[in-house]
Each structure stands twice: as structure tokens, then as C-alpha cells.
């Protein structure tokens, strides 16, 4: 690790002491960068040479973790079934190259918002005076997903959980946002073999799921559906799962 670099905090946070998750960016870890987005009409060729992290959105803008019919290879984002033209995001973040960031525990105390200073980086061809946040690659008036860890490896046949397991410690002092992807070599669930599909979380899904805990990301899969242990890619973000709380009572 070099002893130099750059970083910027969100407004109201002291960049020299604030915890890493309250930074806009740091040169010590990558932001989750969008390489391509659009509406899915047919398979999308990306030709990145690696399987990238991707998201599919529903018609209501939600991330679609049930989108098992979507998978990614080193050349394309593919759909084996389904209708409509959902939004896709292909990130410039390989799922098959391990990465672990440093952790800056720091302070979580934020001061009052002060917008008199900050950093804005406009996208190619866009104005740095734009009021449309989509025109910026980086804007310190926003929070952005930051990559803490990418872990790629084959599941172990432990006989625990559903049978196969992979447990990846995250090392963060909070429960982080994380996403998991599965690449089977053979399966009877309709997943595309030798490509990565997003894994749903635990409720109501047969065969495989993931959970995020205070210490690790846990993935399990059922040998009944996977004759050999699948490969798992996990993307852990430097963003707390539990944020400032908005309390409500109902009814």
C-alpha cells in the first residue's frame, strides 16, 4: 500500500478522520463503476474478457434478485427466458478477480451539511454545472457503492446448510451490503452452466441462497440440484446495510 493517495468525504464529514463508508471515494478502493447500461432487448455483448458484476432492475426500479434467467460470461450478459426489457447495469468490476480493500474504522460523527465545497466529476461530454446527477461520474453530494471485497471460489461440500457452503468473512465493523453470484458446472434449476447468475436471499427460494451477517457472507447450495460444487463470487460493498434509522409506527 502506497503512503499517498486521494480521498473526499460527503458534506459534513471530516475527510481526515471519518469512517471509510462516509467517504465519497478513496484511491484505496474502487467505486462500483457502471460500464454499460440499457434496456434488455436481447443478449448484451460486453467483451470485457471477464465476467462482470451486473444488476437487473424490475419495472419498478428494484434490483431483481429473482432474475435467475440472467447470467453473465466473459463476453456477454445473457437471458435464457423472460419477457419485457428490464434495465441492466454492467459494472467494470470482475467477479473472478479477488480484491480486498483496507478498512478505515474512523469516526461516524457527521457535522452539519456544508455544500460550499466538494468535488464533482462530470461524465464525458457532460457539463460540470449540470443539475442532473446522472451526468456525473462522481459527486460528493451523494453516497455511492464502494467495493470492499470481491471473493471468488468453489463451494465446500460440508454437508451443512443445504450441503455445499461458502463463508466469506468481511471484516467490517458493520453488516455490509453484499451480493452473491453462482456459477454452476451442472445444475437442474435452469441456471446457465459456466456463467454467473445472481443469488437470491433466503426467503422462498429452493436450492441456494445467501445471507449477510455481522461477520461474513454465507452462501449455501443443495447438492440435489448441483451435482458438483458451484463457484461463488461475492461482492461486498463498503456500505452499511443498516443506516440512519427512520422510525415509524403503523397503523
Amino acid at each position: 500500500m502506497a503512503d499517498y493517495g486521494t480521498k473526499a468525504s460527503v458534506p459534513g464529514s471530516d475527510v481526515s478522520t471519518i469512517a471509510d463508508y462516509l467517504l465519497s471515494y478513496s484511491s484505496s478502493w474502487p467505486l462500483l463503476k457502471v460500464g454499460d447500461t440499457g434496456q434488455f432487448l436481447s443478449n448484451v455483448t460486453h467483451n470485457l474478457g471477464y465476467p462482470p458484476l451486473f444488476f437487473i432492475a424490475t419495472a419498478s426500479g428494484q434490483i431483481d434478485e429473482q432474475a435467475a434467467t440472467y447470467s453473465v460470461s466473459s463476453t456477454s450478459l445473457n437471458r435464457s427466458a423472460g419477457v419485457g426489457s428490464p434495465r441492466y447495469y454492467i459494472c467494470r468490476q470482475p467477479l473472478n478477480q479477488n480484491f480486498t480493500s483496507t478498512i478505515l474504522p474512523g469516526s461516524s460523527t457527521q457535522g452539519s451539511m456544508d455544500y460550499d465545497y466538494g468535488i464533482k466529476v462530470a461524465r464525458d461530454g457532460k457539463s460540470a454545472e449540470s443539475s442532473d446527477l446522472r451526468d456525473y461520474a462522481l459527486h460528493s453530494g451523494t453516497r455511492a457503492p464502494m467495493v470492499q471485497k470481491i471473493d471468488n471460489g468453489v463451494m465446500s461440500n460440508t454437508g451443512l446448510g443445504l450441503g455445499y457452503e461458502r463463508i466469506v468473512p468481511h471484516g467490517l465493523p458493520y453488516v455490509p451490503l453484499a451480493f452473491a453470484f453462482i456459477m454452476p458446472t451442472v445444475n437442474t434449476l435452469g441456471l446457465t452452466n459456466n456463467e454467473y447468475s445472481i443469488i437470491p436471499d433466503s426467503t422462498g427460494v429452493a436450492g441456494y441462497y445467501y445471507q449477510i451477517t455481522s461477520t461474513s457472507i454465507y452462501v449455501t447450495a443443495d447438492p440435489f440440484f448441483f451435482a458438483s460444487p458451484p463457484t461463488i463470487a461475492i461482492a461486498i460493498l463498503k456500505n452499511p446495510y443498516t443506516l440512519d434509522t427512520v422510525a415509524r409506527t403503523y397503523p
Partner: protein
Amino acid sequence: MSDYGFKVSLPGYDVGTATPEQCAVHSSYPTFKSRVGQSLPHFATLDVDFTGTITQNVTQNLYVVDHNYGYIPFTFGGIVFLTSVATGSQTITGNGRAGVGATLEIQAYSTTNQFIVSIYDNFNYTDATSRLQVSYYIFAENGT
């Protein structure tokens, strides 16, 4: 592609030759951006304390944020719902949507101007012993 821009490489990489994957920031590749400093936050954890059984068979909005983007934005919405003791205190989870068949549906979704958390219950999953947490990010990027 313009002949100017901004990039910050990761440790160990020459910024002059670093690929986008080797950069922390690259002006050709935007990140997902969620506004800070909003009166109702664009990233937060909604914590709903139910005071009793809710009206059954009707979709009810529990929380609404006016994002006013004028288009449907991309969102993360991590849902954790603890059902009533009467239905076994199950923990139901999901991202954007969580539910049990046709009997329970919790959604965290967007319209062109609002982010909404809603619930539909027709099996009394919800009473004073149940609790809902939704950790959400509303991004400026398009969701559709």
C-alpha cells in the same frame, strides 16, 4: 470519448495506463449516486413498529419518499420482516420484494416521483409483535 477527464488509480497502478478496473474513480464510468442531505433521506433504514393487526387484503403504503426525479430510479431495498408470534415469528427477507406466496407481499419500489414501502397481508402476519426494517438506497440512475 473526450481527450480529457479524471481518473484516480488504485494503489500499485500507474494512473497513466490503468484500466477502468484498476481505478478508484474514472470519469468515463459513472457510479451509482444517492443524494445526501434530503429531508427524508435517500439512504436510510426504515424501522416500522407495528402497533396492532393491520387491515387485511389491502395494499397499504407504510412509507413514502418524494424523490421527484421524474423517472423511475434504480433502488436497493433490503427487507427484513419479523412476522407475528401467531404466525410463528418467521423472518422474511428480500431485496425490493419479500413475501409468502399470495398471502404476504412487502415491496420497496419506485414510481416516477416517489419511493414507496408497502405491505399486503391477508394471513395476519402483522400485529403488535411484528416488525419491519427496510434498508434502502434511492439512486439517481435510471431504474427502467
